[in-house]
Every structure is written in C-alpha cells, then in structure tokens.
C-alpha cells in the first residue's frame, strides 16, 4: 500500500505550490487546486481504509500493523534514529479517513466562506500544510515522527488562528495557542527523552510490543521523587497530549483560538488537531496501562474534571464559537476519560474502543456544528448570540443540519453521538462510579448548552436585522458540506466499531447496556434539552433571573473561572516582570556593569596615578633613587 504515501505528499505539494506561487494565482484557481488535491487525498484515504479493513483484513483474528513506507531521516545514535514512515493500523487508518473527510469538507466550504478574503491563497496553502502535518502525525511510525508533525500542526494552527493578522486579538490568540501548546510540548519532549533513554527506541511498535515489555523491563524499579520513572515519562507525554487536547489547565488557548476563520476552527480546533492528544495516548496505550497505570487514573480524573468544568463554562458563554469551543474541550475530555478508565484486551478494552469511537463521531458532528455556526456568522456577521434569533426561517438548511449535530452531541439515539457516548459511559461505569456520574451529569449539561445554543440562534426572539442585509441561507458550496457532514453524523453511529478497533486489535463484541447506561443517559440528555427548550425557545427572561440568583458563581463561570487572568498573571507578572525583567536588568547592570566597571576602574586608576608624572625633575629623581633603593632592599632582604 505504498500509495498511501501520496496521501501525505499531495497536501505537502499543495502547500509548496500554493505557498510559493499562490500569490500569482487567481483566488478561485488556488482554491480549486487545493480542494481537488484534498479530494484526491481523501479518495486515497478511503481506498486505504477499504483495503486495510476489507481486502487485507485480519490475520489470525487481528488487524496487523503495516508499515508500507519507512526511511531513516536522522540518526542520533545506533539505536535512536528518527524514521519517517507510514504506520497503518486500525486507529491510524480511521484517523486518515476522519482527517481527509473533514478537511475536504472544510476546503470545499471555505471556497465560498473565505471568498474574496485577502490572503485566500495563503489560507489554502496553510490548510494544506495543516492537512499534511496532521496526516503525518497520525501515520507516524515512531514517537519522534509524531513529535515532528505535532510541532508542525502547532505551527499551522498558529498561522491559521492568526490568519487575520491585522486583528490584534487574532494575533494574541495565535500567540497564546502556540505558546501554551509549546509549553505542553516541552513535557512531551522530555517524556520522549526519558522514554527513549531507557528503552533505546522511538518506535511505537517496539514500545508497545508484548504488553510494552521494553518499557516495563527497562524502567523496572526506577523511581524519581517518589514516582516511578515510567510514570514520570508517561505523565510528561500526557502533558503534551493535554496541551494539544486542551485539558485543564492547559485548555485556555482553545477558546481564544476561535479568532481564526470558522472553517479552521472546524477542522483544527474541533475535529482533528485537538484530538491529537487523545490519539497520542491511544497510540501509547499499552505502555500506559502496563508501565504506568497510575497515569491513566490521573488522565481519567483530569478528563472528568475538564469535561465538567468546560461544560459548566459552555453554559454561560454568549459567543457561539466559544460555546462550541468549550463543548469541544468537554467532549475531548470524554475521550480522555474513556481512555483513562479503559482496560486492556477484548472487552476490557471497551474504554479504548469507545474513546476512538467518540473521536470518530465527534469529528463529524463537531465539524458540522462549527461549519453551521460559520454559516450563521457568515449570515449575521457576528459571533454573539444576542445578535441572532429566529434564523430558522432565513436559513433552514443550516438550521436542520445544526439540529442534527446537536442531537448527535447530546446523545440522542439514533444519532452517532449516542452510540459512542454510551460506550464511554458504560466503560466508566465498570471502572469508577464517581466518574460515571460526573460524565452522566456532563451529558445532561451538554444537551442543555447545545440546545441553548441552537434555540438562541435559530429560535428565540427575532433580532432587528439590517434591512439591506437580511440573513440568508448560505450558498450551495457551504450547505453541501453541511449536509454531507449531517449524513455522517446520523449514520456513523451504526458502524460496528469494536469489529475494527480495539485495544489489542482483536475484535470483540460490544452491546449497549440499556438499563444501566443508555436509558439514564437518554433521560438526562432529554432533561437538558427540555430545560433549554423552556428557557430559550421563546426567548424568555428566565435565564437572566437564574443567572442573577447564581450570583458569584455565574460571574465566575462567565469569566471562565478567571483562569485566563491567572495565566495572564503568571505570564505577565510572574514570568515577564519577576523573571525576565530582573534577568535583563541583571544582565545590563550587573554583568555588563561589571565589564564596564573594569574599564571604569582602569580609567579611574589611570586618572589617579597621573599625579606621579608631575613634571618635576626632582620628584622623578626621588622616585628613581627610592625605587632603586627599594629594589635593592627587597633583593637584599627577601
């Protein structure tokens, strides 16, 4: 399946082509080239998926890993070298499909959405770069290749968030996104260093083989500051994943990242890049579970907390993209939780499978939500809910597709979200009751805030729209992707996921636990929807009253629990003012001052001895005589 290489090469070539010569092309030409190229990559991905799952299929009941392409890129030591290659296994193939699909949709959508923007070509070239990097990330054969592409997606995300570079908020957001994730990546890097130091390999296959034997044996009995070294390494790697996947407290960049164009948010900050962290944990899952199970517990709790935390914030946000952003955080946290509560092998690995399943379904409906939101924003030229209302009658396609997505995310059967979320909850139920109930509550919250959003946008009170600029349905180029994604959101839930993806690549049977999980979750979700309906469908004053009654808690939630301020305080006041400034001062005044001081001392000494040269012959002679007598005395008596 060497042709899978073209899935990577195509976007890269597109990037170079559009990046270097784009500004000479017409916008449409550039857009079409980009889209067609992406379509080609998507077609290839589907082909790969088909071939992998159905043509080659299982050997000995297991989906085998395949490495069709691999070459050494940079050799560090005999054992450690960065290879670039393509690793095909169930999850990477799945990711190929997800990424290319969503990316193609976004390409298509952007043709219209971004039409006429200055820097359109640049936009497409960055999209291609992102697709390339993300695809490279998922097919990475080794952890360092993953790190390379991890950084590349970071940069493409940076460039795309800051696409409107004249807008200071966009610039700030892109900077924040990059730096926060960069900080997290530092953990990732150190984790890699520790892991590779002991195991002597970067290779995923070697790391995970035989229940992560290489890791377990090489780090046996080593501990550092009370924690086993393996736990340190894996926790640090998780830190990288947490940064990209916006886990608390590294999530702060994601809401701000919404400054980028909406399709970008759909692609990068909803469907693909942000789940890279989940993917990373999944990739190294055997290592986690066998070498550092305590980290998995940590992941589960952090995930659960993040899910709850983000959901609560999402309830109060008024910027629709921010609601979606917090929703994304919350949903990714679901996936994390799922991984955290998972076991290994067969049905024990339900959480693992569920996580991937949710990743898969979430990609489509979240992309749909964002694109739908984009469509709305395109229509009303605002992100704020208060500027919207009753849009259903103006833009029915958007409304319907949005509704589908909302149902999917709320976990209402038969939409895809229901199936994946259900598996997560049942995995949690068997592992940790506290987490289970938290996640159940979050499911309710999810349903509530999504429908709050939906009702506020498409129903509620009609706002005074500009008469010349009545909102209107988006052009076909935008609605077609919406429809396609809606179809995905409806039907992907029916794919029998455990057949394809499991923690040990061995298919197993999973079934819906109606009594303990499904029914409660549906009930909770419906409750959330109903509350939302009551509160927002007609656009009543109740929400305001409730907000008032909540008082400080509400305010805190609106301000995202002041985490941005905390970060701002740490970066601006602590790091900038208390570390950097003093260091710079120290450098200029103490270090440099010492150097200048040497010069100054020399000058001063020079000035102070000049009196010796008095111009008086007799003093010269006196010095002469005393000098020679002194030398004589010293020579005599020493």
């Amino acid at each position: 399946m060497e042709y899978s290489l073209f899935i990577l090469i195509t976007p890269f070539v597109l990037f170079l082509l559009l990046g270097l010569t784009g500004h000479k092309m017409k916008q449409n030409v550039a857009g079409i080239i980009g889209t067609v190229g992406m379509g080609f990559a998507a077609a290839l991905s589907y082909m790969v998926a088909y071939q992998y799952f159905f043509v080659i299929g299982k050997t000995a009941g297991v989906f085998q890993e395949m490495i069709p392409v691999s070459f050494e890129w940079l050799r560090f030591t005999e054992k450690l070298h960065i290879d670039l290659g393509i690793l095909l296994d169930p999850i990477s193939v799945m990711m190929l499909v997800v990424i290319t699909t969503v990316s193609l949709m976004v390409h298509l959508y952007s043709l219209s959405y971004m039409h006429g923007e200055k820097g359109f070509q640049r936009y497409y070239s960055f999209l291609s770069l992102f697709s390339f990097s993300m695809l490279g990330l998922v097919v990475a054969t080794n952890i360092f290749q993953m790190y390379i592409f991890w950084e590349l997606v970071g940069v493409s995300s940076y460039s795309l968030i800051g696409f409107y570079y004249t807008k200071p908020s966009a610039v700030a957001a892109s900077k924040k996104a990059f730096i926060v994730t960069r900080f997290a990546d530092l953990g990732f890097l150190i984790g890699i260093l520790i892991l590779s130091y002991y195991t002597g390999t970067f290779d995923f296959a070697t790391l995970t083989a035989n229940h992560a034997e290489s890791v377990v044996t090489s780090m046996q009995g080593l501990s550092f500051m009370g924690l086993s070294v393996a736990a340190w390494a894996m926790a640090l790697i998780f830190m990288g994943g947490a940064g990209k996947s916006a886990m608390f407290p590294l999530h702060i960049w994601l809401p701000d990242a919404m400054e980028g164009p909406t399709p970008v948010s759909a692609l990068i900050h909803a469907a693909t890049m942000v789940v890279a962290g989940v993917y990373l944990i999944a990739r190294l899952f055997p290592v986690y579970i066998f070498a550092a199970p305590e980290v998995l517990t940590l992941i589960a709790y952090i995930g659960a907390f993040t899910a709850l935390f983000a959901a609560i914030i999402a309830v109060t946000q008024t910027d629709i993209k921010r609601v979606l952003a917090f929703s994304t955080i919350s949903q990714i946290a679901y996936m994390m939780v799922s991984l955290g509560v998972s076991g290994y092998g067969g049905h024990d690995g339900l959480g693992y499978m569920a996580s991937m399943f949710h990743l898969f379904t979430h990609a489509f409906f979240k992309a749909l939500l964002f694109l739908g939101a984009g469509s709305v924003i395109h229509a009303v030229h605002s992100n704020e809910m208060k500027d919207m209302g009753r849009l259903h009658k103006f833009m029915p396609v958007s409304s319907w597709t949005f509704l589908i997505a909302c149902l999917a995310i709320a976990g209402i059967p038969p939409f895809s979200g229901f199936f994946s979320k259900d598996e997560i909850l049942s995995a949690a139920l068997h592992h940790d009751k506290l987490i289970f109930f938290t996640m159940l509550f979050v499911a309710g919250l999810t349903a509530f805030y999504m429908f709050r959003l939906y009702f506020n946008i498409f129903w509620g009170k009609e706002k005074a729209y500009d008469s010349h600029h009545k909102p209107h349905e988006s052009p076909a180029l935008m609605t077609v992707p919406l429809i396609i994604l809606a179809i995905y959101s409806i039907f992907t839930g029916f794919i029998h996921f455990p057949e394809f993806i499991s923690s040990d690549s061995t298919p197993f049977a999973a079934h819906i636990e109606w009594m303990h999980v499904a029914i409660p979750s549906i009930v909770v979700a419906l409750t959330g929807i109903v509350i939302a309906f009551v509160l927002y469908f007609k656009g009543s004053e109740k929400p305001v009253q409730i907000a008032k009654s909540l008082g400080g808690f509400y305010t805190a939630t609106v301000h995202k629990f002041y985490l941005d301020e905390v970060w701002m305080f740490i970066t601006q006041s602590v790091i900038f003012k208390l570390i950097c400034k003093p260091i710079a001062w120290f450098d200029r005044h103490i270090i440099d001052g010492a150097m200048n001081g040497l010069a100054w001392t020399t000058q001063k000494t020079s000035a102070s001895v000049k009196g010796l040269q008095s111009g008086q012959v007799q003093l010269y002679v006196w010095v002469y005589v005393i000098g020679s007598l002194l030398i004589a005395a010293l020579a005599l008596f020493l």
Partner: protein
Amino acid sequence: MDFSNFLLMQQEMSLMAVFVILFIYDVFCSDKGKQWFQPIACILFTLHTAWGFLPALTGEAFGGMFVNSDMTVIMKNILNIATLLVFLQVNNWLKSHDTVHKRGEFFTITLVTLLGMYLMISAGNFMMLYIGMETASLPMACLAAFNKYREKSAEAGAKYILISALSSGVMLFGLSFLYGSMGTMYFSDMTAQVVSEPLMIVGFVFFFSGLAFKLSLVPFHLWTADVYEGAPTAVTAFLSVASKGAAAFALMFTLYKVFGNIEVVWNPILWWSSVITITAGNLFAIRQKDIKRFFAFSSISQAGYILLGIIAGTPLGMNATVYYVLVYVFSNLAAFGVISAIENRTNGNTLISAFNGLYKSNPRLSLIMMLAVFSLGGIPPFAGFFSKFYIFMAAADRGQFLLVFIALLNTVVSLYYYLLIIKAMFIKEGDEQSVDCFVTDGYNKISLILCTAGILAIGFLSCIYEHIGSKVDLFNF
C-alpha cells in the same frame, strides 16, 4: 699596540668614516651646498647599513674590552635600520627655519650616539659599557634640546641631561661596588665571581637602574614622557627605538654574560618591573592627549614586553627579544614617520585631535598609522603579532605563565588606547584643528614605505626570525 684590533670593529669604523665625512662636509661646505646634506647623509648611511650586512669578523678585541659576534652584528644592523629610517624622516623638519642651519649637527651628533650604542652592545667591559652609554646619552641631550627656541624642547633637554647624569652617577656607584667586590671590570672575568652577596646585589641593582633608565622601566621611566614630548619628533623616534633597543641588548648581554649566576636575584626584579612597567605604561597612556606623549607611554609598556624576552634567559628568549626590537623599530618608526609628517604640517601641533578624520584627508598616512598601531598592539597579520607571540612563547618556555598572562591582559588595555588612535583617524570627523590634505616629502615617503613593508613582511618571512635564532650560538649563559 696592535692596531689590527680595530679591524674587528668593522661597523664602528665605517660609522666613524661616515661621521668624519659628514662632519668635514658640514664644517667646510658653503650654505648653498648644504642643501645636499640630507641626500648625502642618507646615501652614506645607506652604504654603511649595507656594509653592516656583509660578513663580519667576529671575536674579541682590546683584551676582551670589545666583543663582536654574529649577534651583535645583527643588533647593530637593527640599530642601523632604525637610524636610517629616522634620517629619512627628518628632511622636512630640518628644512624648517629654526633648524635649517644646523642640520649637519643633527646628523653628526646622531651618528655619535649611534656609536655609543654600538659600544654598549659590543662592550666586554663595564668601562666600555659605561662610556658607550655616556656617548649615547650626552649628545642625545643636545638632540633633545635641538629645537632650542622651543620651550618644550629646551625643557626636554634639561630634564634628560639632569636625570641621565644622575642615573649614570647611580650606575657608576653600583659599578664601583662590583669592582670592589670582584676586582675587575671585564665581563669574562666577572662571570665566575658573581655571587649573591649584599654588596654585589646592591651594585647590580644600581647598575641595573642605569640600563633601566635608558630602557625606561618603572620606576626609572618618569623622564620618558616629558622628554619624548618635548624633543623634536625625529629625536623622539630615535630615542624610542634605537636608544631603547641598545639598552635592551646591553641589558640582555650583561644579564646573561655577567650576572647569569645570580639569576635568582634578577629574575624577580625583572619579573616585577616587567609587570609594573607594562601596567603603568598602559595606565598612563590611556589618558594622553598628545600623541608623542602617548607614544612615550606606549613605548614604556613595550619595554615591559621586551623584558619578557630577557627574563626568559634562554636562546629562545634572546631570539625573541632581538626579533621583538626589530619589529618594534619598524612599527614605532612608522608611527613616528606619520607623526612627524603631520607635525610639520600642523606646525608642531601633536595633539591626537589633529588626527581626527585623517582617513578622509590623508588616507595613506592613516592606513600606515593604522598598520603601525596594530602592529604595536600585536594584531595579526602584522609583524607585531608575531613578535609578541614569540616573546610570550619565550617567557612561557621558562614557565612564566603568570607573567605572560598579565602581559596579555595588558595587551587588551593597550589595544584600547591604540584603538583610540584608530578611532580618531577613521571614525571621528575632522575639524579645523585637524590636519588637512597634504603631500608627504619624498624621504619620509621612502621611510614609510620601508616601514610598511617591514610591518607586513617581517612576520611572514620566517627566515628573519630563524636567521636571528641561528646566530644565538655564542650564547654563554
């Protein structure tokens, strides 16, 4: 009486011949004929210099009072070159109204001082050394006061003669002690008798102070700046290279030949005076406004570097020292050539500010000055770098790493003030005080070209250093 002894004094004889010819010419020639004085002097002296390069007889004469070896021939050649360069630089100055009628005196007196320096180098007896030193310094006082209607020059002459007389008194006092304890003044007889006794130490120190005075080592250096500043530039140039070089050579010979036994005594003395001399020279140089005074202090610190080679007390050290002086001659005279050219133009103004913007007005002169200054500062690829490196090597060879290190740190300071000159010439803008565009006279041009060639080539032509090295055989230390 065996007059064949005089045959050994090949260079001295030829020098005396030049002296006599010039003297007679000066006395008997009409004023009109005297305008040819400069070319004649230069040509004669060139011949004399060339003569010095011919193979020479070596050996002792006058019962060991006079010693000629390959090494002394080389040293004398170096002094010849220095003198020749100085002769080439004086034309413009001597043509000026004040001095035009006494240019003959300048040449004759200079030649006599040169003779004195020869004898200092070739001395095999302290009496000879003493007479040589006096011959080198008494007429030098007249030269310092040559511009006798300039107050500064008169003052310089007075300072020089007074201090030099005292210095010779102290030195003689020391010599009398040495004589008293050993009963002879012949180097070869003294060598074995020198021991570390109080009287000999005191005698040695007093004697050393005499040479240190000529070499301007701290604390015997205080005259240097005043005399250098006040004396006519050509004389300053001559003083700074020839007189200093001869003193360095003489010091080296006496230390090695006579006082080799008491190295434990003179080694620390030289060590400290080297450190203090370099440092003090540098410290004083930093603040100078007058370029001649500036070069006086620079030359004091250079003397400290010379000591580094002497202190080594090895053939390597001697080789490096002689080489150092050779390079120093070219570098310093290049600088003084430029200074005298500018001084003549600015009517005696030798402030550094006169050099402001020199690059704009006289690019060639400024480039030569830069070469000179870089060479003095020890910057490659100019000769000064090589000579400094070798002198450091020589000192390090004896394990004097600390000394070398101190000297090295001082080169940084010295670089600072050398760069001030560069800054004045290249970076600063000229004003009404600074010199305008002018043409240097032909003689000076030749001297500057020679100096430039020397600065550029001496380092790369390793044969020069190796040649000097090959002549250190007679080393009997």
